[in-house]
């Protein structure tokens, strides 16, 4: 027995060692604490605009306010006028296309389709005054709208279908004296309500972020670090950091989690290794539209129906519009699990006049693949729908949607697709054959906000699982736990069970033979 003691003792030592290794106490994440320190100090305004005499007067027009701004900030308007917020387009190099000007003026989206011929209404979200058609003068500094981003009074609102002018009720003097660093409500006024309502477009950007708790968004949580949009989307010289691939196409000026958090933020090698191929958002944003629903589908093809000769709308049980004669039918969803794609920071877009080459048409296509060294897996909201299309020219049609009066060819007034298509395509200078139909379309929205607390991030087995894992759709690489060689698995099981059955038969044979041999022996004795 003494001889067993030493091995047993050694084994025990190894076991203790193993237990020690398994239960590593969690170390404080110093870089994370440092970030919390950094962002808990909130910036304080260095000047008080109520003190300036230039602003203590009644302004006749919003342009007068802009002039007053430029009087002191006498170079800033140039920065603004170089931005995509002003130009509604960027110049970028796109693979296969070359140098392109791309933006709201020529890119199609999957919601209200496009701004062309609808500027008067769409310009509610343009940082300028007077964009009523495609003749807007982008060189006139007087038309820069400083207030929409810098107002702190929360009294500044843009007028509806007012070409970007403020609502008539706004007290310009009050607003001019209350300006400062943009707050979440300034950004949110447009970015929360794209597509015509709260959270319609993004799914991860909505009003609830103004008063979120940590489970909705760890960064913007009012009961947490309470960061503002511009804490991350720094706008040094009015150059916003961060791009959204609904309109952007290139991997420039991108805002990444790693800008603050580094690519090895976990205190855990196994997790840090994942950052090479998995975007942070994939694990840390398990769901979007956590508070209010987002639109998942918009079918224009169903627009135009009438009830008793009149346009109508239908609400679902949650009070959400699911049908509108002027727009078609919608699908909403909340707490949505994202879909996942390989993405390398480059995208292509359907630009007005392009020939449609796939059906469903991806109005924006996120590029990337498993074997592309720059690609990572990203979560996306995929918005599906259908859009009006010319089967003869094979182009999507930019319809004229908005007008303030009937009889102006606008679909939202007259509900006549043919008229709207003729007027819209005429305005953008593209041919229209006179025939139209509807084709399915998709739009890809990378999900970047609504980061969940650590405890709610994805667990390993959400992806590393045989069936129905989160990454079930991405099959072009080997994912442990999900993938296997079916043949090897069958062979392996045959080997194990074959061996088991084999030894069982052998044992049985031994047993029977042993009994028989004994019988023979005993018989021998009997005789």
């Amino acid at each position, binding site marked *: 027995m003494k001889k*067993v003691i030493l091995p047993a003792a050694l084994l025990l030592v190894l076991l203790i060692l193993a237990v020690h290794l*398994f239960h590593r106490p969690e170390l404080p994440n110093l870089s994370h604490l440092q970030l919390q320190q950094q962002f808990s100090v909130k910036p304080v305004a260095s000047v008080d605009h109520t003190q300036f005499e230039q602003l203590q007067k009644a302004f006749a027009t919003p342009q007068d306010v802009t002039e007053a701004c430029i009087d002191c900030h006498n170079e800033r308007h140039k920065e603004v006028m170089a931005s995509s917020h002003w130009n509604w387009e960027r110049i970028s190099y796109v693979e296969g296309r070359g140098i392109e000007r791309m933006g709201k003026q020529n890119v199609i989206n999957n919601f209200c389709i496009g701004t062309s011929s609808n500027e008067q209404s769409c310009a509610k979200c343009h940082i300028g005054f007077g964009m009523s058609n495609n003749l807007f003068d982008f060189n006139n500094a007087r038309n820069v709208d400083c207030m929409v981003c810098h107002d702190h009074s929360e009294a500044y609102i843009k007028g509806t279908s007012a070409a970007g002018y403020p609502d008539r009720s706004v007290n310009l003097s009050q607003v001019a004296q209350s300006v400062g660093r943009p707050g979440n409500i300034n950004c949110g006024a447009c970015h929360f309500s794209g597509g015509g309502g709260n959270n319609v477009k993004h799914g991860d950007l909505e009003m609830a972020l103004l008063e979120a708790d940590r489970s909705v968004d760890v960064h913007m949580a009012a009961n947490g670090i309470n960061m503002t949009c511009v804490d991350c989307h720094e706008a040094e010289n009015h150059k916003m950091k961060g791009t959204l691939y609904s309109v952007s196409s290139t991997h420039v000026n991108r805002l990444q989690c790693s800008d603050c958090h580094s690519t090895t933020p976990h205190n855990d090698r196994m997790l840090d290794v994942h950052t090479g191929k998995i975007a942070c958002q994939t694990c840390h944003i398990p769901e979007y539209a956590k508070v209010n629903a987002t639109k998942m589908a918009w079918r224009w093809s169903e627009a135009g129906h009438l009830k008793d000769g009149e346009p109508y709308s239908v609400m679902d049980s949650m009070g959400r519009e699911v049908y509108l004669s002027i727009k078609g039918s919608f699908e909403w969803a909340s707490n949505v699990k994202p879909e996942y794609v390989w993405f390398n920071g480059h995208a292509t877009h359907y630009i007005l006049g392009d020939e449609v080459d796939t059906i469903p048409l991806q109005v924006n296509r996120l590029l990337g693949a498993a074997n592309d060294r720059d690609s990572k897996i990203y979560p996306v909201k995929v918005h599906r729908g259908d859009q009006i299309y010319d089967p003869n020219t094979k182009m999507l049609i930019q319809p004229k949607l908005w007008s303030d009066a009937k009889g102006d060819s606008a679909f939202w007034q007259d509900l006549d697709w043919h008229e709207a298509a003729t007027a819209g395509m005429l305005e953008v200078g593209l041919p229209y054959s006179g025939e139209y139909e509807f084709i399915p379309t998709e739009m890809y929205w990378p999900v970047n906000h609504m980061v969940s607390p650590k405890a709610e991030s994805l667990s390993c087995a959400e992806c590393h699982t045989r069936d129905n894992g989160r990454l079930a759709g991405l099959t072009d690489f080997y994912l442990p736990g999900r993938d296997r060689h079916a043949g090897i698995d069958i062979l*392996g099981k045959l080997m194990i069970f074959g061996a088991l059955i084999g030894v069982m038969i052998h044992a049985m044979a031994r047993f029977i033979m042993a009994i028989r041999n004994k019988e023979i022996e005993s018989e021998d004795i009997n005789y």
Partner: protein
Amino acid sequence: MQRIYIYKQFERFWHWTQAILVLFLAMTGFEVHDSIHLFGYENAVVYHRIAAWMLLGLIVFSIFWHVTTGEWRQYIPSFSKLSAQIRYYTIGMFKGEAHPTHKTARNKLNPLQAVTYLGFKLVMAPLIVVTGMVYMFYRTIDANDMVVVSEIPLAWIAWLHTFGAYLLMMFVVIHVYMTTTGSTPLSNIKAMLTGYEELEPVDENSIIKNKEAHEA
């Protein structure tokens, strides 16, 4: 019958630690493979990696021990009695015949065992250890400039490793069963635990002579 000291202390320690580690590696490995659910995926990965390092350490020790003690010679298979041994397990033992070979401290593996364990040491273990190490250090080229093993697809490495795991499990099944074929069903296991086994006293020199005569 005589109580003979046949398995040395290190051997027994090595054998049982290896047995535990391999079973533990199989349990955690097949959880990583999503065949079973025991510890949770995350733990399975961590445990598998720790146990793998422990197994590697043990293997290094045992190689050292086998080389320095000359015990590695035990694994040189003698093919002369191999067929006799196979005949014994398939036919002879049912007829109540005696073992065709004698187990002694200096010659404790029968020819079939020697071949099998040699196969274990030269094929199965290297297969699973090498593919396991490559699996562990596998990185595709990525933005973090990690170690690069991207020329071999991960799928191949994982397939080989999984195949090795199945092979090993098959070995374990047969191996455990074969331990019951000693003089009594538990005598072999007892020997591996205590080091002593009741054996027919044999003049070892005569056996070696016999062997040499056979091979000549």
